[in-house]
């Protein structure tokens, strides 16, 4: 029976774009999160018709289908957890059209996110979402997970820039949502429903994205703090002063020290926290705003502030932030990057709770991230071969989520729920919230073929398990 559908599949897409060898199947069994699950087949789709036909076939035979970009997901989005077909979109990157008069871009799902911004820049435009994996990640994956990035503080996330989609439904029909206009209130907003649905409601085959004028200038500063709560207060104070920076990034002491040990660059290792702030806009405006920001931070008691005078100096300051991930990866081999997010006013409290969790479970926990929008990245460094340690890590993660929800925040700011956070969904949404979502899923995908095992917890699973059984 298995051979039947594989033979039919070959009629739609033939090798080498249809892969069934063991080496190939293993190579699409993982993403950047946890676990490895072997699919029966991998198909590299190159047009909407192929997607539609594959999904119709899958729906007929009730074979699970998992859309996948370049596998950079941190939440398990593309993992083929129940076997079946991986739909690989990475090679479908041919369409990248910029329409400067409409300020839109029309793209195929395999286009790299960073490539969209590069193409827009040629017209003096910008595609703002800037996940740090943007040079690897595809726009299809970004749409599925509703990816964010440092600029989210000022510019929002992926969903804020999507105005139209072409979608293949779980039954293989091709629909169009939204359109090419900024204003559009016709019917339900299916565009926003599909974006961030993590490939469980439909497969995106084309997107129309909104572009904005590229700010002509930017300026960076670094502020050093002797204690964490003050850095948190500083963020609120700046944001209330009428200034909206493009980015406010935070590094805690553990991350400062890790970077300094990894690649000495003269960072203040006694500091409790560093804030990196980028302003963008008209050169004269940001000059004035920078002076004001500097004044606010100094008055609040920042130990030191440095305003970059040149582009090179700015780059040097941002390098420290970029080095956090590689530097902390040296501490222990397994790195779990969380993205629990809290209202901005709760950042100091969240940092305090994170430190308590770190003490309680005796884990290596480092805090950095997009503090300006409340989206911290508590990273846990551990060793997945150490069962005893992993149990403590699982408990700590559960407590991080509980703390975020308790403070009025959310499980995920930008990585998505996937498999990693599914056990905690109900904690945030409540049983009725989950039920309404499940009804939506059932209406769209009656046979549950599209990315099963994601977002919703499997029956009987109420906690995270990171160990191999």
């Amino acid at each position, binding site marked *: 029976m298995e051979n039947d559908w594989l033979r039919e599949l070959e009629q739609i897409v033939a090798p080498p774009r249809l892969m069934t060898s*063991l*080496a190939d199947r*293993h190579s699409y069994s*993982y993403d950047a999160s946890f676990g490895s699950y072997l699919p029966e087949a991998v198909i*590299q789709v190159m047009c909407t018709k192929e997607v539609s036909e594959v999904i119709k076939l899958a729906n007929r035979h009730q074979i699970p289908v998992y859309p996948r970009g370049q596998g950079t997901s941190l939440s398990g989005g593309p993992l083929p957890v129940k076997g079946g077909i991986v739909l690989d979109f990475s090679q479908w990157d041919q369409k990248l059209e910029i329409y400067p008069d409409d300020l839109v871009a029309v793209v195929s799902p395999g286009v*790299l996110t960073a490539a969209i911004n590069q193409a827009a820049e040629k017209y003096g435009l910008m595609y703002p979402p800037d996940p740090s*994996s943007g040079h690897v990640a595809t726009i299809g994956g970004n749409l599925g997970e509703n990816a964010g990035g440092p600029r989210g503080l000022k510019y929002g996330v992926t969903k804020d820039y999507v105005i139209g989609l072409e979608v293949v439904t779980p039954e293989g029909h091709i629909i169009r949502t939204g359109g090419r206009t900024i204003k559009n209130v016709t019917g339900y907003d299916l565009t926003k429903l599909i974006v961030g649905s993590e490939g469980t409601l439909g497969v995106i085959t084309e997107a129309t994205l909104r572009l904005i004028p590229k700010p002509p200038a930017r300026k960076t500063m670094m502020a050093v703090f002797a204690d964490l709560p003050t850095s948190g207060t500083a963020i609120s104070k700046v944001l209330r002063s009428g200034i909206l920076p493009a980015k406010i990034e935070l590094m805690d002491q553990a991350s400062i020290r890790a970077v300094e040990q990894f690649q000495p660059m003269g960072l203040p290792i006694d500091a409790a926290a560093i804030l990196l702030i980028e302003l963008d806009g008209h050169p004269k405006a940001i000059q004035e705003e920078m002076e004001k920001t500097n004044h606010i931070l100094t008055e609040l008691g920042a130990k030191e502030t440095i305003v970059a005078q040149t582009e090179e100096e700015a780059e040097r300051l941002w390098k420290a932030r970029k080095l956090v991930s590689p530097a902390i990866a040296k501490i222990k081999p397994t790195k779990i990057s969380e993205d629990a997010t809290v209202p901005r006013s709760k950042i100091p409290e969240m940092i305090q709770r994170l430190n308590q969790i770190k003490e309680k479970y005796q884990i290596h926990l480092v805090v950095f991230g997009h503090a300006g929008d409340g989206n911290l990245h508590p990273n846990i460094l551990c060793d*997945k071969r150490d069962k005893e340690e992993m149990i403590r890590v699982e408990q700590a993660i559960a407590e991080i989520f509980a703390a975020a929800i308790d403070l009025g925040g959310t499980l995920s700011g930008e990585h998505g729920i996937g498999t990693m956070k599914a056990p905690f969904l109900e904690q945030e949404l409540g049983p009725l919230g989950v039920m309404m979502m499940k009804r939506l899923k059932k209406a769209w995908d009656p046979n549950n073929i599209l990315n099963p095992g994601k977002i919703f917890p499997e029956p009987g699973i109420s906690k995270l398990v990171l160990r191999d059984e």
Partner: protein
Amino acid sequence: MNDSLRKLQDKINYEKTFACVQCGYCLPACPTYETMKKETHSPRGRINLVKQFAEGKLDINVLQDPIDKCLGCNACTVVCPSDVEYNKILEGAKQVLEEQQPKTKKQKIAEKLLFEDIFPSRKWMKRVGDLTWFYQASGLKKFAEKTGLAKVAPLSLDQFSQVLPNLPSPSERRRRLHRIPAKGKSRIKVGFFTGCIMDSIFFEINQKTIDLLTLAGAEVVIPEMQTCCGALHAHTGKIGHSRLLAKKNIEAFEAESVDYIINNAGGCGARLIEYEELFDDDPEWRERAKTFSNKTRDISEILVELDRLTFTQPIAGPVTYQASCHMLNVQKVVNAPLKLIKEIPNIDYREMEGADRCCGSAGIYNIVNFEDSMKILDNKMIHMKETQAKIIVTTNPGCLLQMKLGIKRENLASTVRALHLVELLHEARPVQK
């Protein structure tokens, strides 16, 4: 876990696979991911397969093709945010494959010729040089036919024979001195590591290298007992053999107390600076290897450091630079060649897109995996043509041959030349400052 699996894990550097967090940042850097278009032929994919294999979850056959098709260019290690030692994992996998896998006939013959007849023996210098010279008139194709290589094609050696330079005669090669004094005041004493291919097929370039060195104020010695660097052996999993060759070279250069050990082949240089790692379990040799590696420099580095040359002859036409992967990604020599190129009067240097990407030469990759290599080369030539360069400069014999082949494939032989950096600098008529 049973004993044999543990031994396998040790050999294949299984522990090092845990450094990979599977972020995928290596994908855009990988030339084979670009041309073969699947994760299986990406660094992340290969590391995963090695790991699954080392855990006993996969048969060794599954590993063969993805590992064979890796260029070993190390571009992934430069962009890796977790500093995964990919080259160690790759070499471990190659060693295990070498020991456990039966070879195809084609592979056996090619490897016997390359590793037993040409590269390892002290006689290689004469033999390759003489044979190639002798057979040049009749063409390398006949040479290949005679050794049985052509019959087990597609080794496509005939393709390469057409782009080989004219060789000096054996007697000319034998006339070379082993000690060449500096021109003018001697500032340092350097040992010249001549390399196999460089000292046979590209003998002329070695002569020009010595000219540049002596003109820059270096006394040059060429230790006679030196041998192949062992890079190709290590890259095909013959670690034991590579270690033997390393010892010979270390001894050969120890005998002459030199300030630096100079080479002009990116691939050889990369191996020489890694000698230390071959002797993890042998403290005495590790120390000796370390001293050797610390003295090792590429010709471009030493010329920049000595800073004694002025170039007097302008070079016409745009020039582009195809970096050697091993020089760039392993030796981390990035700026020195460019600095020298830009010192030439009126030079029109144009960087090509992807100048830091492998050209597909990769040791014997272009011989063993000809078709795959040509796909990578064709991409390279697209970017080369965009620069409208009249000269492509390289710093490694394999890359140089590959560039010559690329030029021929594009039918550009009448307008575009591929030169070793040393040839370009020589052409620019250097004089002492």
